[in-house]
């Protein structure tokens, strides 16, 4: 995996984590279902991106 890809993946991981955290807070405060769904999707992306980064580090 090239450097560009790693950067991009890192960005995706960070951004999706941010979005997920915000949505999570909204869900906890207001209990909005949509926020919950958004948080789940965002966290899913974060997990996948993180796993890719770790895999890349190990190669």
């Amino acid at each position, binding site marked *: 995996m090239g450097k560009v890809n790693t950067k991009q993946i890192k960005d995706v991981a960070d951004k999706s984590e941010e979005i997920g955290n915000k949505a999570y807070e909204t869900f906890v405060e207001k209990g909005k279902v949509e926020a919950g*769904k958004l948080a789940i999707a965002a966290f899913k992306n974060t997990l996948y991106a993180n*796993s890719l980064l770790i895999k890349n580090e*190990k190669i």
Partner: protein
Amino acid sequence: MIKECKKCGVILCDKNLELECDRQCKQCKKKNLFCTYKYEDPELEAYSIIRRRYFSSVITYQRNHRIGPYKRKGECFKCGVILCDKNHYKSDGKASNTQCKHCRNNQKSCRVSYPKDVCKKITNTTRRNSAKLRTDALYDNVVKNYLRHVGYTTDVISPEMIEIKKKQLLIKRELRKQGVWVR
């Protein structure tokens, strides 16, 4: 009346009887297999020794016909489940197993299906409840297992990922309570 430990089948010691213990000897509570208490009554002591031997090396003693009159309860001494037909004693007196198949495989209870009058299932509520509590509390190991089921290998899973997964699971549980199922 002689009372027996429901777990290992050993005769309960005087201390347990005085305390009106719920049919489980103290040693069993400490996860030992049998009671080491010495009885004053020689008859009881002899009987208890026989049972101890029985639990320590059942098959050898049965082969050599050394064992005295012990009761064949047909219960798994580990989980208390009534043994299934396959595990039960054969007509010649030789036991095929003393432990139910599920205990051997480190599972919690016997799941072989029988007619209700033949097989009574003794459920171990404490074990079941503790397992439920572990899952509810979302310990790191539990979350790690969730991640493994999704497809992540153990070498990829980091503490950060565990934290994120925890949040995700919490949201999912909350949504399920409201009737919303998210994959």
